[in-house]
């Protein structure tokens, strides 16, 4: 099921430049800022990640999920049954050749294929890392049969203080009327990077809610990509990213309607402090056959420092004529009236600013699956703020 890695850490040698090693793993050179999709995000920063594997199995095809406790209605597929739909969501959403996806494939990911039937409740998927420095990769395929339901939480986290690159590729196939509430709560640190692709194929009548939250990473890139294959499905995308220091967080989302009557509700929020940099690019494609599509996209950024930088861009390509597509972007600072109100109640300025940041983040965090509460997402996101 899993190919042996084309390049082993040992072969790369500890002195080999990490970027060359990563390029070899991916079978393609790293994208540069001359490419439109990478204009604001410089992967050259990955040079700081030592060549090597940080998976518990150190690059060997050992299964980290062998003892995984699955709720009723969820079964793990292996062999040909598992491979039947592998890669189809990546291909359908046009990202199978994206560099982070190729890297994931080349880094010998741990692979988990789950079939979901009926109402399966909730599942938190462990994403184990070792204390070693280097790359760790996971590949997940979720197939929700028609009418199935699941809440899924992923909490990718690097080992404390270690220079690690976490590569997560999740594929989802939603059958007719299936419903998935997916949450990704990604709390990193400045020495770690996260490359995250989420590719979803939605059949008609299906519902997807994906809430992607990240903070603290030296570099984090999220690419949620959704195709409504017959239209007539509901997609809700929520994002929240927080940067401080010299961190960078980048969300490139993509939604395409390949049939009529589809719905999209997208909210992306960012908090930019220090000299942090936040990037959002929201692509929505509404071809001619996608009549009566109803899509709304909103990007909201809270700018807490005059050294922080925001790049936010809606990218709507609308060919159908009978559609509702709204988009908006706001960048604001903490409101002085709100701050004054809190201070006038005896709350010091720093605490008041923290409360208002929490309020800003709450709108997205409350949409995480209930299992996320255990991780105290606010504290994870804001630290001591």
């Amino acid at each position, binding site marked *: 099921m899993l190919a042996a890695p084309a390049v082993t850490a040992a072969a790369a040698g500890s002195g080999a430049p990490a970027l060359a090693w990563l390029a070899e793993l991916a079978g393609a050179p790293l994208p540069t800022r001359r490419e439109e999709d990478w204009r604001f995000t410089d992967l050259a920063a990955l040079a700081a990640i030592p060549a090597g594997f940080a998976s518990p199995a150190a690059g060997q095809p050992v299964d980290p999920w062998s003892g995984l406790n699955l709720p009723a209605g969820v079964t793990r597929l292996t062999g040909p049954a598992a491979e039947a739909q592998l890669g189809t969501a990546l291909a359908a959403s046009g990202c199978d050749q994206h560099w982070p996806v190729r890297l994931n494939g080349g880094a010998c990911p741990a692979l988990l294929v789950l079939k979901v039937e009926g109402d399966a409740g909730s599942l938190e998927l462990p994403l184990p890392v070792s204390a070693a420095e280097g790359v760790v990769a996971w590949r997940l395929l979720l197939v929700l049969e028609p009418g199935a339901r699941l809440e899924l939480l992923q909490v990718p986290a690097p080992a404390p203080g270690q220079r690690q690159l976490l590569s997560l590729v999740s594929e989802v196939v939603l059958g007719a009327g299936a419903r998935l509430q997916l949450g990704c709560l990604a709390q990193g640190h400045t020495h770690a990077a996260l490359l995250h692709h989420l590719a979803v194929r939605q059949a008609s009548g299906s519902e997807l809610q994906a809430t992607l939250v990240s903070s603290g990473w030296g570099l984090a890139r999220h690419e949620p990509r959704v195709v409504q294959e017959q239209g007539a499905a509901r997609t809700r995308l929520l994002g929240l990213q927080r940067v401080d220091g010299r961190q960078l967080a980048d969300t490139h989302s993509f939604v395409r309607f390949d049939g009529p009557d589809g719905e999209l509700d997208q909210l992306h929020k960012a908090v930019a402090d220090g000299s942090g940099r936040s990037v959002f690019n929201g692509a929505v494609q509404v071809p001619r056959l996608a009549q009566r599509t109803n899509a709304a996209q909103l990007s909201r950024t809270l700018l807490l420092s005059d050294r922080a930088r925001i790049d936010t861009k809606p990218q709507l390509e609308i060919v159908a004529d009978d559609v509702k597509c709204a988009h908006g972007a706001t960048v604001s600072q903490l409101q002085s009236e709100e701050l004054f109100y*809190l201070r006038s109640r005896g709350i010091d300025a720093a605490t008041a600013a923290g409360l208002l940041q929490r309020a800003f983040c*709450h709108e997205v965090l409350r949409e995480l699956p209930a299992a996320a509460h255990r991780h105290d997402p606010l504290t994870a996101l804001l630290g001591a703020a």
Partner: protein
Amino acid sequence: MSAVIRPDAPVLLEIRDLHASVENQPILKGVNLTIRAGEIHAVMGRNGSGKSTLSKVLAGHPAYTVTGGSVLYRGENLLDLDPEQRSRIGLFLGFQYPVEIPGVSNLEFLRVATNARRKERGDEELDTFAFEDVVRERLSVVQMDPAFLDRSVNEGFSGGEKKRNEILQMALLEPVVAILDETDSGLDIDALRIVAGGVNQLSSPDNSTLLITHYQRLLDLITPDAVHVMAAGRILRSGGKDLALELERSGYEWVDAELARLDGEAAPQPAAPQPLEVA
């Protein structure tokens, strides 16, 4: 009638020749006001007279710059203090437009605010459970539904609910000097009665209240000891509660004439309320 109502009571707030501006625009141009323990004062005036600015300057709003004069709070210089310090030592501002803060639970907000005040007074801070007991008891002051505690601060509250939440904060913080800025605006008569009833319950011989208002109707429910008319950034006239009734009858037209006269210009004598002696 004299503006000194309780001459033996300690002075809680003493405003002397206060000047303040916002964005380099002078708004307050020499306000004088002395408030003693146990007194309720009302400041009335038209829009733009400076009465809301006075309340914000006293609470320490950073957008306003004090350009002259002084404010003593129980003999201490109030203007040196941050807004949060002013609150902790017992100054309270009830907002005309309370701010909505989605995502911050009202209960938690009230608890943090209450504990900041308690800490300053040397009282033990309250944990979530102990605070719930305190707050539930205080809810009765404004007849507020406990469901409002579980909601975000002021989010989706009606105008009346927001003002009740302000008075609930006053009940919890037990201020020494409470300034209520247009607490009556936007309230129907029932909400006004509840809010006014709360203020009356909280008044004591040891504290004082400064009501900033546009209309007489609040003063039908809260009887002021002194009424001050503000215009063009200063207090033009002070008197007893009858002054508010006079204003209700004769309006504010006389103010313009009075201002013109003060500016040294010839103006016809206005049909003003009888001047009241101010000590």
